[in-house]
């Protein structure tokens, strides 16, 4: 029987092959400022591989693996700038569905592994619940309001909308083509779209309730923290890739008749990036080791997402510096990775935001 570590290693190896065969930076370049922000054929491949169902329980039709497996996949995929379709749909959306307690849960979850349900969580910036109200209306609800930060929202089949109902926050699974739903988008640093959704008197039935007030806020909070850990893995993958690019460059670029990699001051700068990357890997490992338990999940997410965001930003900055002018061209692939790192480090709370959560949890003076 394969051990958990074997499965993780096997998935990582598969993801490496997907990256090697995939469109890579060239593909990402061609998709800039294009909808939907990911490669539809890659989404098909990932579906065929079953990876959309990694985080869907077996009893719900998925393959029921955990965060370590998904993290291993995303860490590798991000090295080819191919993590995007999984993050909103197979991680955040899927986990919100998993944690739901309402009637909409089972049917939608069952459609996730096949890519038939691409569910995007409707949020406002910085993880805030959106300003949406739900008013009871004969046998169902009417939703009105807007959500300013909906990653994956542009091409979602369903919007998972937390809304303030008279009896508390309820979570609704709203078909994206429902009358009254309007979608727009901003562009993120990596030129992928950030959905913005407005709901005007959108009528939904009781069957579309995904979580009742008993579960809704917890479902969102847990899914967010789980996603933070997977995003941290993506940021680690980006850091590893940028550092590798930099080391290669330091081994070929000459100035003053010497390889720049032989200059001690630059060597120490590169070593500091390596150390940071090792530290980020440790923080991620901590996040993954305790990520299953709801009690320790917030700390796990704070530590993994905070450290990996911080590290990816630093590796990005110093990689540009170590590349010199060439790293500042749009033509060089480094910039694509830098922008992706900036995008993911900001999403769901950057390092500073995670540190604030750490303080709020009472850990700073513990």
């Amino acid at each position: 029987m394969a051990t958990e570590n074997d499965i993780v290693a096997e998935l990582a190896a598969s993801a490496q092959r997907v990256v090697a065969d995939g469109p890579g930076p060239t593909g990402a370049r061609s998709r800039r400022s294009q909808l939907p922000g990911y490669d539809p054929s890659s989404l098909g491949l990932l579906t065929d591989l079953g990876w959309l169902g990694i985080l869907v329980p077996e009893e719900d039709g998925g393959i029921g693996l955990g965060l370590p497996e998904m993290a291993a996949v995303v860490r590798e995929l991000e090295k080819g700038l191919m993590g995007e379709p999984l993050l909103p749909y197979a991680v955040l959306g899927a986990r919100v569905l998993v944690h739901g307690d309402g009637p909409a849960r089972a049917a939608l979850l069952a459609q996730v592994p096949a890519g038939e349900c691409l569910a995007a969580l409707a949020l406002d910036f910085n993880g805030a619940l959106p300003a949406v109200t739900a008013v009871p209306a004969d046998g169902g609800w009417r939703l009105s309001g807007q959500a300013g930060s909906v990653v994956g929202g542009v091409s979602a089949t369903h919007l998972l909308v937390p809304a303030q109902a008279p009896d508390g926050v309820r979570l609704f699974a709203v078909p994206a083509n429902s009358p009254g739903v309007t979608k727009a988008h901003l562009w993120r640093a990596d030129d992928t779209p950030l959905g913005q959704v407005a709901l005007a008197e959108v009528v939904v039935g009781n069957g579309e309730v995904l979580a009742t007030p008993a579960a809704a806020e917890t479902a969102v909070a847990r899914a967010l923290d789980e996603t933070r850990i997977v995003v941290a893995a993506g940021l680690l993958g980006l850091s590893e890739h940028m550092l590798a690019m930099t080391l290669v460059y330091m081994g070929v670029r000459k100035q003053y008749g010497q390889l720049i990699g032989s200059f001690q001051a630059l060597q120490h700068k590169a070593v500091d990036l390596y150390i940071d990357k090792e530290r980020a890997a440790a923080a991620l490992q901590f996040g993954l080791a305790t990520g299953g338990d709801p009690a320790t999940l917030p700390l796990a997410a704070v530590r993994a997402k905070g450290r990996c965001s911080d590290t990816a930003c630093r590796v990005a900055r110093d990689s540009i510096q170590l590349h010199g002018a060439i790293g500042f061209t749009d033509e060089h692939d480094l910039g694509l990775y830098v922008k992706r790192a900036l995008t993911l480090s900001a999403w769901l709370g950057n390092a500073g935001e995670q540190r604030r959560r750490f303080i709020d949890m009472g850990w700073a003076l513990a």
Partner: protein
Amino acid sequence: MRDWNALSDEAFRLAARDFIEAHCPAHLRRGEEHVRWAQSKDWYHAMAAHGWLAPGWPVEHGGMALKPAKHLIYLEEWARAGISRVMEQGVLNVGPVLLAHGTPDQIAHYLPRILSGEDLWCQGFSEPGAGSDLAGLRTEARIEGDTFVINGHKIWTSGAVDANHIFVLARTDKTVKKQAGISFILVDMNQPGVTVKPIVTVNGDAEFAEVFLDNVRAPVANLVGGLNNGWRVAQSLLGFERVWAGSPHMGRQAMDRMVRVARLAGRDRDPAIVDRIAQLQLDLADNSEMYERLAQEIRAGHSFGFEVSTLKIVATETYARITELTLEIAGEQGGLAGEAPFADGPLVLGKADLLRDYLTARAPMIYGGTVQIHRNILAKRVLGLPA
């Protein structure tokens, strides 16, 4: 022509401000740092018409004859007004270099054509293999009769897309050591063999280009400062730019934006953030003070030396750190390209945005010698540490 130097610094500052307010068009204010010639030429001609185009040139050549201190004030007023840069290589570099090293014919021919905007210059120094190590350049110029035949590949040539002339450093003697065999040559770009390929930078600017020189020709009369003497000519020209590189003007603009972002994001009430902003304010204030000290030295007529390396490191690294904290303060909005919406309203920065500011701030730590190269210079030349 007025004697600008006779004015007090303050009076001159106000005169410059008045001129700018009266003549600089709105579309060049607080927009992109670099614009194309088509957008800037009216402003260029207006400066020329009113005698504000060539601050460093002598009055008899149509310049303002500003002393360095006044020249810095003029630059500061440009920065204050947020004016885009114009095609400035002719005015800033070609004019002074010809006045110092050129022949009377070169001066008489080229200077008026710079003022008129007929000749637009760009600088052909950097090469793909010669960045910080400029003396490692490989562009060659061989003499055939009374003509240089030039082959090489220049890069990071600012304004090359609009320019019609380029001054190049080219190797004219390969038998001597690096700096010794280089010449400074004026080249007309309107000829076969000159290919300009724009470079787009990571922050979206299209300011730079590569310039390929394939059997490009220039009369030997276009040599400036003597054969194989180009290194010394080029060094004389890099001085003033390096002082300006140490000015806190970029950091100040970034700080203004950071404070606005902090307010929009509601973090101006977060003592932990305010503490870090305060430190950067103090860093910026000390950068200003250091810059002021150097400006005073220049005002007092003293020459400046390696302290410009210190200032360059302080100014560029302070600027960069400000943009880094700004992204952190912006939170999730710091991960956006383009205009950032905040609860208290959008951040309107003209065509700039947070991402672009952050990326733009990487460049000054690289161009004009990386901050690492400047540390090498200080270690050797100022601290006297062994090689």
